[in-house]
């Protein structure tokens, strides 16, 4: 008995490797994405959606936009080492977090601070990596949110392994891995998706295709019809969604999470979106893209799209707008206040978590640093 022989597992039913058994093992048709991305806002789907979901998406999108702005300002003031803004991608990030249940796990990339915050991590703890005081400022277990991952696509197999382990344990847990369009070119993306399909693991992959990997446009990254078409090569469904349509992203991910949860295996979702800001505050986007392209995407703004839909449903009342703005400003104010001063850091923490028990060599090195610090303190004390 193995989870691999689960009856929903498409690979399990296949007989031995026979000259006759050469036709496709599974039907590719349902795995292929629709040619047009799924959209919900501005369609009948928006009219049918739960008003409270729309309001919640709105509040978080507004707060997310403000968070991005405030963090960018903090880089200019030297209070953050670096910030990769997700301005323009708020719909993906917020919808991703909201599509998960508490027992699920999120595997974010460096650009996904907003998703991490929407998942419930303290907004300031989520920023320690980018502030420069701690690699990971939050307890990943507390909110089932993995550390922000910098080496591209390396979080993909992590999500697969965790989902697989959860399935083995019989737990009702799904993992969601976030990555960018550029990340799909890395070997780890490929290996991770293949493992997911073969293990039939309850995991969902969301590629936020924002058109660029730093300066490299999608057309130099991939020649695929869409990135979602990669799914068929692994034997999982590929889905295409308008990444600036928060409701559409929420729907597609919710469906994928539900499929994973009920033994339907992994899904690859490609969300079409755009990075309005430069790659990070250190980047100069004018070197590689035209202002008119940015403008075209500004006109397809995720916050505006949601506002329009709320207005259409008569949900965008003064109260909501004021509440959302208020929450956003409170968040920004808290960021300004807490990042006003540098944190107190303990240099000896360098040695604290390399191993469960420091080696003799590390104890010696810790002693050396302690002595240096003591000597310094003495000099300054005098």
């Amino acid at each position, binding site marked *: 008995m193995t989870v691999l022989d689960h009856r929903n597992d498409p690979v399990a039913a296949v007989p031995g490797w026979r000259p006759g058994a050469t036709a496709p093992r599974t039907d590719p048709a349902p795995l292929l994405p629709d040619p047009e991305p799924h959209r919900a806002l501005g369609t009948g789907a928006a009219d049918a959606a739960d008003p409270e979901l729309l309001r919640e998406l709105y509040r978080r999108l507004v707060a997310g936009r403000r968070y991005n702005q405030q963090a960018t300002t903090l880089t200019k003031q030297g209070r953050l080492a670096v910030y990769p803004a997700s301005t323009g991608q708020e719909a993906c990030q917020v919808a991703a977090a909201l599509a998960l249940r508490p027992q699920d796990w999120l595997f974010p990339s460096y650009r996904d601070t907003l998703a991490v915050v929407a998942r419930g991590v303290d907004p300031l703890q989520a920023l320690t990596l980018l502030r420069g005081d701690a690699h990971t400022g939050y307890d990943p277990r507390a909110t089932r949110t993995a550390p922000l991952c910098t080496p591209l696509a390396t979080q993909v197999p992590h999500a697969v392994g965790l989902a*697989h382990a959860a399935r083995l344990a019989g737990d009702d847990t799904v993992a969601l891995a976030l990555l960018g369009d550029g990340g799909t070119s890395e070997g780890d993306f490929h290996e991770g998706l293949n493992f997911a399909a073969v293990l039939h693991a309850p995991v969902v992959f969301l590629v936020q295709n924002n058109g660029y990997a730093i300066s490299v446009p999608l057309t130099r990254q991939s020649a695929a019809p869409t990135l979602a078409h990669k799914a068929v090569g692994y034997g999982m469904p590929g889905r295409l969604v308008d990444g600036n349509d928060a409701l559409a992203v929420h729907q597609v991910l919710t469906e994928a999470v539900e499929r994973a949860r009920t033994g339907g295996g992994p899904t690859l979702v490609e969300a079409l979106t755009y990075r309005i800001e430069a790659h990070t505050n250190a980047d100069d986007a004018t070197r590689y893209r035209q202002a008119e392209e940015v403008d075209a995407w500004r006109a397809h703004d995720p916050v505006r799209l949601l506002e329009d839909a709320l207005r259409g449903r008569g949900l965008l009342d003064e109260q909501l707008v004021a509440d959302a703005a208020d929450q956003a400003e409170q968040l920004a104010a808290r960021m300004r206040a807490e990042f006003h001063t540098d944190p107190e850091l303990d240099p000896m923490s360098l040695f*604290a978590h390399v191993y469960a028990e420091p080696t003799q060599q590390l104890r010696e090195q810790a002693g050396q640093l302690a002595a240096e610090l003591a000597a310094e303190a003495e000099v300054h004390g005098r």
Partner: protein
Amino acid sequence: MSTAVRDQSGREQSGPRTGTMAQALNLALRDAMRADKTVHVLGEDVGALGGVFRITDGLTAEFGPDRCLDTPLAEAGILGTAVGMAMYGLRPVVEMQFDAFAYPALEQLFSHVAKMRNRTAGKLPLPITVRIPYGGGIGGVEHHSDASEAYYAHTPGLHVVTPATVADAYGLLRESIASDDPVVFLEPKRLYWGKDGWDPAAGVEPIGKAVLRRPGSSAVLVTYGPSLPVCLEAAEAARAEGWDLAVLDLRTLVPFDEATACEVVRSLGRAVVVHESAGFGGAGAEIAARLTEKCFHHLAAPVLRVTGFDVPYPPPMLEHHHLPGVDRILDAVARLQWEE
């Protein structure tokens, strides 16, 4: 071929026994999986085949394919998947098929496995054991005989363990699997089939302790893994030359047992470090540099190194010229400035 040790009536033996290192490793995996159901084995061909060296023989039969998993062929994927499993509370034991085939997984190893505890301030320790058959001397074609312990030993956050005896193979693997930190467990392929008497219940010195395999009064050979038998042979041969050589088996490169190594080096004043991987930037460099730094005024001669040459691993028909042998070790001993 099953690697379990059986008595004449076919029952699995317990207690003292004679067996190979391959059998001891197999038993260690089996016992670890019996003792702790969070222990999972994964790798290429570890299931029905029992691994190309048969170290995982019978595990799928006993524990099922969910506990001993044949993965797709993708080393980064394997180790990355193990990271996720460990995050969820499992204790994965990964088998890499050969040393050079662990290279595709080096990014996962260096950037995640080694760093995860540190980058999460202790919140996400990764109790992963990465088993890697390493070294040459088995007539393997290119890419099948690399010895890359230096890469691992230089990477903070990893433990690097390498047994040289049958008993250590069992004891150190059990301890590695039980460790809450990631361990790169290097298995000397050419010692897989060497037999020895041992007792699983007897226990061995823990990870981080070097063991003097042979006392001596003239000089010490400091070594580990595949080179231990060669050093013992050299020490035996050295008697004829009038040298009484001690042999120190490091057993683990990280943590390095400085205390034991320094004690013997200080007492004898002469040391030769022996390993088969390339000498330049090899583990022997660290050992020699460290022993010199700590024992300088006790040294009658510089700590010498006998290692593989600084060349890509040669084709099998030439490997014996590359690997440190008894003569090369004795030549180094002879250069330990005995007259002065």
